[in-house]
C-alpha cells in the first residue's frame, strides 16, 4: 500500500472540509443542486490515492470527493462549482462535470451509467497501447439499473480489458434506495459474467486500500477486469436538493469526546468514516488526538484558501458560451 494511514486520513479530512465548504458556498451564492460525497471519504481516498500516473478515471454526478481524493486543486474545483473562469473547466462543466485530465480524469458524466460505459473504452485504449495502466470506473449502485452496465461488464470480461469497476453502494432499502435490483447481491451481476468481485466495508480506509491493491494488481497483470463493491456509510443528506449541514459541521473531537458525540447526530457520529478512522488510529497509537486535530486544521486552512481563490475568480466572459463546442481547426 502506497499511502500511510496518516496521509489517508488527511485526504479524507480535506474531502470532508471541501464538501462542507460547498454547503457554505451553495447557501452564500444560491447555487443549485450538487451531490455531495460526505460519508464516501474512506473509499474515495483509499482508492484514488493508489492510482498511478497514466491511469484513467471515469466518475459521476457525485464526483467532488473523487477530485479531491486524487489531488485536484481544491481552489480550482470550488471555482468550477461557482461557475468561475478559474475553475477546472473554465466554468463550463460545473459541479456535475468537473474534470482534470492531468490527473487522469477522462469523464465526469451525470448520466447514470455513463462512467461505467466510457471506462470500457478507456480500458480498450490502454490495452491497445500496452501501457500497463488501468481504467477506473466509479459509479453508484444505481448504474447497475441501466442496461449499459450489463453490456459494459460483459464486453470488459470478454475482451479481458484492464478496468477496475468500483461501485460505491450507498443504497438503503426502503428509505433511500438508489437501485432496484432483483438480486439482493449486487456483485452477482459481474460474477455471472466471470469478473472477480470483492465486497468491502467502504467506511474503512484500510480495508478499501487493501481490496483496491489486490484488484489493481489483478488488472495491471492483464488478467482482465475486477469489480469492487464498497458498501458505503450513507450520509443522511446524500439526496437533498437544497443543502443543509444535515449532520452538523464535523467536529473531529467527537472521535474521543463523548459529550460532543452524543448530540442529535449521535447515530451518524458512530458511523461517520472520518470519526471512525480517527478513533481507530488513536486506539492503535498511530496518531494522537493532537495529530488528528492538527491534520484537520491543515485541511481547514487549505480549504479556506481554496474558497478565497474561488470567490476571487471572475465569471467567464458571456461570449465564451459560443466557443468551444469543437476543437479549433
Amino acid at each position, binding site marked *: 500500500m502506497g499511502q500511510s494511514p496518516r496521509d489517508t486520513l488527511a485526504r479524507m479530512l480535506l474531502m470532508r472540509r471541501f464538501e462542507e465548504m460547498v454547503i457554505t458556498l451553495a447557501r452564500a451564492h444560491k447555487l443549485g443542486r450538487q451531490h455531495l460525497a460526505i460519508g464516501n471519504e474512506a473509499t474515495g481516498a483509499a482508492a484514488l490515492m493508489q492510482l498511478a500516473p497514466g491511469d484513467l478515471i471515469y466518475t459521476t454526478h457525485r464526483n467532488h470527493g473523487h477530485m479531491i481524493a486524487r489531488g485536484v486543486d481544491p481552489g480550482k474545483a470550488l471555482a468550477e462549482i461557482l461557475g468561475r473562469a478559474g475553475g477546472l473547466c473554465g466554468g463550463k462543466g460545473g*459541479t456535475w462535470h468537473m474534470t482534470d485530465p492531468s490527473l487522469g480524469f477522462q469523464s465526469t*458524466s451525470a448520466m447514470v*451509467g455513463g462512467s461505467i460505459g466510457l471506462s470500457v473504452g478507456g480500458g480498450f485504449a490502454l490495452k491497445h497501447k500496452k501501457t500497463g495502466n488501468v481504467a477506473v470506473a466509479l459509479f453508484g449502485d444505481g448504474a447497475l439499473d*441501466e442496461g449499459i452496465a450489463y453490456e459494459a461488464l460483459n464486453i470488459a470480461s470478454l475482451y479481458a480489458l484492464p478496468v477496475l469497476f468500483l461501485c460505491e453502494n450507498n443504497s438503503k432499502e426502503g428509505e433511500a434506495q438508489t437501485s432496484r435490483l432483483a438480486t439482493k447481491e449486487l456483485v452477482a451481476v459481474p460474477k455471472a459474467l466471470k469478473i472477480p468481485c470483492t465486497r468491502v466495508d467502504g467506511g474503512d480506509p484500510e480495508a478499501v486500500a487493501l481490496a483496491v491493491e489486490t484488484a489493481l494488481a489483478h488488472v495491471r497483470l492483464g488478467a482482465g477486469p475486477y469489480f469492487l463493491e464498497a458498501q458505503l456509510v450513507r450520509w443522511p443528506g446524500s439526496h437533498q436538493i437544497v443543502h443543509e449541514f444535515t449532520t452538523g459541521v464535523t467536529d473531529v473531537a467527537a472521535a474521543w469526546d463523548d459529550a460532543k458525540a452524543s448530540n442529535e447526530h449521535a447515530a451518524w457520529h458512530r458511523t461517520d468514516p472520518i470519526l471512525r478512522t480517527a478513533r481507530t488510529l488513536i486506539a492503535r497509537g498511530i496518531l494522537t488526538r493532537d495529530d488528528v486535530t492538527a491534520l484537520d486544521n491543515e485541511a481547514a486552512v487549505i480549504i479556506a484558501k481554496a474558497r478565497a481563490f474561488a470567490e476571487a475568480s471572475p465569471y467567464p466572459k458571456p461570449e465564451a458560451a459560443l466557443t468551444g*463546442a469543437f476543437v479549433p481547426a
Partner: protein
Amino acid sequence: MPQKSFAVAMIDALAHSLKTDPNVVVIGAHSFLSDRGLKPEDERALWDAFPDRLIDPPTSEGVCTSLVTGAAMAGMRPFLNYGTATFAYEAFNQIMSEAANVHSMSGGQLRAPLTLHMYAGIRGGGAGQHSSSPQAMYANAAGLELVLPACPADAQGLLRSAIKSDNPTVVITHTRLLSMTGDVPDGDHTVPFGKARIAREGRDVTIVATSLMVREAEKAAETLAKDGIEAEVVDPRTIVPLDVETICASVRKTGRLVTVDEGNALCSIGSEISAQVAEHAFDALKAPIVRVARPPVPIAFSPPLEAHVTPNADKIVAAARKAAQPR
C-alpha cells in the same frame, strides 16, 4: 374557472385518465407527482387510489420504453415519465426505431397508444447534460406525435388528448413552466391536437413560439406594444401535427414572421415553421423571417454563459423589431 399550476394541471389530466380508463398506467410516477405543488392529502389519495398503476421503476429508461411500447401494443395505454429529457436518450432506439414504427411497419395492423413525458429546457445550472430542448429530434422521427404545452389549461387538455391518442406521443414540459399558474376549465378538459392557439392578437408581426417561449413572446409583445408594434403570438401547441393553416393566416395578416424556439437553431422547430411559411405564404412576407433560438453549442454551467445563449423576451423584441422594419 379554477386556477392551478401547470404541474397540478398535468397531474389532474393523469388522474382523469386513470379514473376513466383501467388500462392507463403511470411509469415514473414519483417525479411527476411528488413535490409538484399538490396538497399532501391529494397526493396521498392518488397513490392510495391506484397502488398498482402508479409505478416507480429502476433507473432503466431503455427497457421502460420497451415495456410501455410492448404493453401499449398488447392493449394498455401507458404513460412514461422520464424526468429530465436527456434521460430519454438512454432509450433512443426504443423511441425512434420501435415505438415510432409500430403502426406503419405492421401495415396498420398494430398500434402503440403510449405517452412519453419529459422535462426539458435550459433550467439554470443544468450544464451540458441537463439543459436539452430535444423537440426537433422527436418531430423528425416520423411516427411520433409531439406536444409542447405552454400554459396550465393546455398542459391539462393536451396531456389528456395525448393519453387518449392511439399513437405514440411525446409530451415535453419546460421545467420552468411547472410553477406557472393559470385558469383551467372545470372537469375533464381536453384540447385537440393540430389546433394552434392565438395567445395574443396583433397586426404588425407574427411571433410563433412554443413551450416556455410563448410566455417570453407574450412579454416581448407587451414591450413592442409600447413602441406601437402590435405582435401576434401564435402557439402551435402541437408540432406533429402542425397547424400550418393558422400560422400562415397570421403571416398573411402581418406580413412578418419571427419564430422562437429554445432548441438549437440548426434544424429546429423554428426552421420547420420558417420553411412552411416560405412554402405556403411566401407572397405574404414583407421582410425576411427572423429566428430566435439557442445557438448550436452545448449549454455551459456558468450563469453568465448560460444566460448568453438562452432565448428570452429581450432577444424576441430585437428580432421582432428587425422583422418589422419598413422596407
